């Protein structure tokens, strides 16, 4: 198995605060991995470092064996790194289809079937609607569609189902997992909903206070006492 993304001793300080503290891990090609941890653990900061929104204070990362540590965001994207944002970011002056078009133009994809993807995501009826006319759950879907349309090899999803109902979450996660499997995409996602995490992740990384404190299969993590402590013995959440 080759490594898609390798993170080496990554650190990020904001003034005196160590938001990310000496974090190392690697993602195998085609893996479906969750990154969890309590609020403020550093998940989003980690994503921002991986995608190049923030510069690391120390350490670095390799994408398919190539160092991307000092590469600007757009070049990382062209090397195959896609992402979504915790608060969905879309182009609000455009229709749903135009949003996807931008992704396709940027990724130089001209044979992609945007309609089919919108159909699968359940937003086909909104194809020609301006983003501002959509409900938040649908905007999340549009952003996901943009990220998927650019056919990334590594996809970072920051809370992909936030703001959706329980049934919706399940179907979206199923769709993401299926597309990732078919395409061989490496996925790293954060999520507060434990059903999504334990139901879909093949591997779980747990962060607390900027550090990686556990790494293993869902069973390993479920039985990890350190992780249970951090979630304040809230086993109901983990077992659900």
């Amino acid at each position, binding site marked *: 198995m080759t490594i898609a993304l390798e993170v080496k001793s990554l650190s990020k300080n904001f003034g005196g605060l160590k938001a990310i503290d000496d974090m190392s891990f690697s993602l195998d090609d085609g893996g479906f991995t969750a990154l969890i941890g309590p609020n403020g653990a550093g998940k989003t900061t980690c994503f921002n470092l991986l*995608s190049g929104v923030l510069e690391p204070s120390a350490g670095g990362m390799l994408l398919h064996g190539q160092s991307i540590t000092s590469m600007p965001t757009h070049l990382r994207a062209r090397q195959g790194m896609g992402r979504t944002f915790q608060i969905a970011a879309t182009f609000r002056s*455009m229709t749903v289809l135009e949003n996807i078009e*931008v992704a396709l133009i940027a990724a130089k994809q001209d044979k992609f079937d945007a309609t089919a993807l919108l159909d699968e995501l359940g937003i086909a009826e909104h194809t020609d609607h301006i983003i501002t006319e959509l409900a938040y759950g649908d905007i999340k879907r549009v*952003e996901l569609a943009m990220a998927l349309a650019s056919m990334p090899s590594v996809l970072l999803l920051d809370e992909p189902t936030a703001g959706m109902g329980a049934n919706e979450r399940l179907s979206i996660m199923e769709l993401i997992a299926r597309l990732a499997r078919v395409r061989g995409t490496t996925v790293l996602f954060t999520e507060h909903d434990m059903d999504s995490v334990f139901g879909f992740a093949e591997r779980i990384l747990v962060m607390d206070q900027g550090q990686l404190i556990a790494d293993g299969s869902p069973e390993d993590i479920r039985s990890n006492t350190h992780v249970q402590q951090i979630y304040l013995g809230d086993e109901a959440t983990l077992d659900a």
Partner: protein
Amino acid sequence: MAFYFAQFLTGLASASSLFLVAAGLSIIFGVTRIVNFAHGSLFMLGAFIAYSVSQHTSFWLAVTMAAIAVGTIGWCMERGVLRKLYAAPELFQLVATFGLVLIIQDAALWIWGPMDLLGPRAPGLEGVVRIFGEPIPEYDLFLITIGLVVLAATWWTFKRTRFGILVRAATEDPEMLQALGVKPSTLFQATFFIGAALAGLGGALELPRQPANLMMDLNIIAEVFVVVVIGGMGSIIGAFLAALLISQLNAFGILIFPEITLVAAFAAMAVVLIFKPYGLMGKLSIATPNAVEIAPPMTFGRIGSFAGVSLMIVLVALPFFAPSFVVVLLSDIFIFALFAAGLHYMMGTGGLISFGHAAFFGLGAYGAALVVKGFGVSMPMALVAAPVLAGFGAIIIGWFAIRLSGVYLAMLTLAAAQILWSTAIQWQSVTGGDDGILGIWPSTWATDTTAFYYLALALCSTTICALIYLSLGQHGLLLRATRDAAPRAAALGINVKARQWLAIIIAGVSAGLAGGIFVFSKGSVFPDVLAIPNSVDALVMVLLGGLHAPVGPIIGAGVFALLEDGLSRLPYWRALLGITIVIVAIYAPNGLAGVFSKLRVLRTKST
């Protein structure tokens, strides 16, 4: 050595008034997130009011009263205009304060007249002190002290008083403050009063050094923008350090290159921005509001295309029946529509605010004039040189501009245009200074009014159509993506900075071509083409037409030219323009195109 020390003290004295104005601007920005373009006007009012009061009473009382009066004027500005715009995109806030600049300028002209007014010397400080044998005016030493006192007082206020703590809290997180039960409107009013009073004090204290005059507002605001960009917006210490730096550069620059003191200031700003994009003491503000409203392009479908084609047919046929003054007026409108169309592209589609679009127009105009005078080339070659030179200017200004956004961008573009303007005035051997360059006439085949009309129509309509095509096509789609959500665009692989740079260059080239045609239509060029009013004209045309309508610049230029033709003979035409700007910013942010489209929606609904 002693001479240099004396020069250093002169620099410090000038730094004081610059610092007072910059500090006021910074405090207001920190709390309200509004860059007050009219801050230079408040400085000017300070000087004029101090002059008038000092005619009846002592100088020191006049200074105090001027500061209080200007503070009150600032408070009125906040209540009357700006408070309606706190939720508006940055562009409209900036534009509204610019409207106030025009209104205050004409008000000052009306009250105090066009003459420079020489104020009294400061009683008790008329003499000079000898330091190392060099004469130093006592008043300069007093100004240096005042600068330090105000620095200490503001520092103390912000660190130690409840008001200061609230102001700092508001700067960090305005919403949190509201959640804690502090009424922001009271704080905003107080801030505006204090910020304006500081500017008024600065202006009043200038009176013994220079006469009160109508140029003070724009002269100081360009320098103040350089100061706050260098110092970092919202930082008092930063403003102080930057005011010192700029004043010393002026004091010593004048010894070495008397012609280019402003250029030195700009170079300093450039160096700082390369290493510290948010200024010496500035921080990246997390929550930056949108520069412009995010909206889809406003198109008018079949009716729009029909209107466009009919307009073109009418324009082509027009010289056959219209009187020649109409033909001349229309040629001018074409040029201004092109000038505005470039700005519209970068500002509407790209969200890149410019208050210095005249820089490119002027570069094109001077470029064309200089190649004709210097190399004796023909008009067609000059019309190639004009956009090329403007394009180079846009490459350089754009290189700095893409490092900035929103209000910083507005300040940088204004400062850049102001510097080119002063270069055009001061570099007499090349530009002819205030006398301009005369006798730039079109090729013989285009001297006839009608022939020139067709030339202007062909060049302008082709370029405008190209710009509309760009903004509605793939290129515009990607540019809008960078405007709507830059992080999202970057994460998809779009090089945001490169797209924005390209947009600025396209805007610059278009304006440059417009400037080139303009020179041949007038036969001459003067520094005016680079001046702030010319930039404002372009802005007004874009906003009047409608920021989101690709045809906006055409409508805007047409209406603006008619207004100017009808009203510019009125004595206070600039104030009328200012009032129009304020009204458009507050009540019609989508311009005339927005009004049309609203009417259309109403009509469709009623049928």
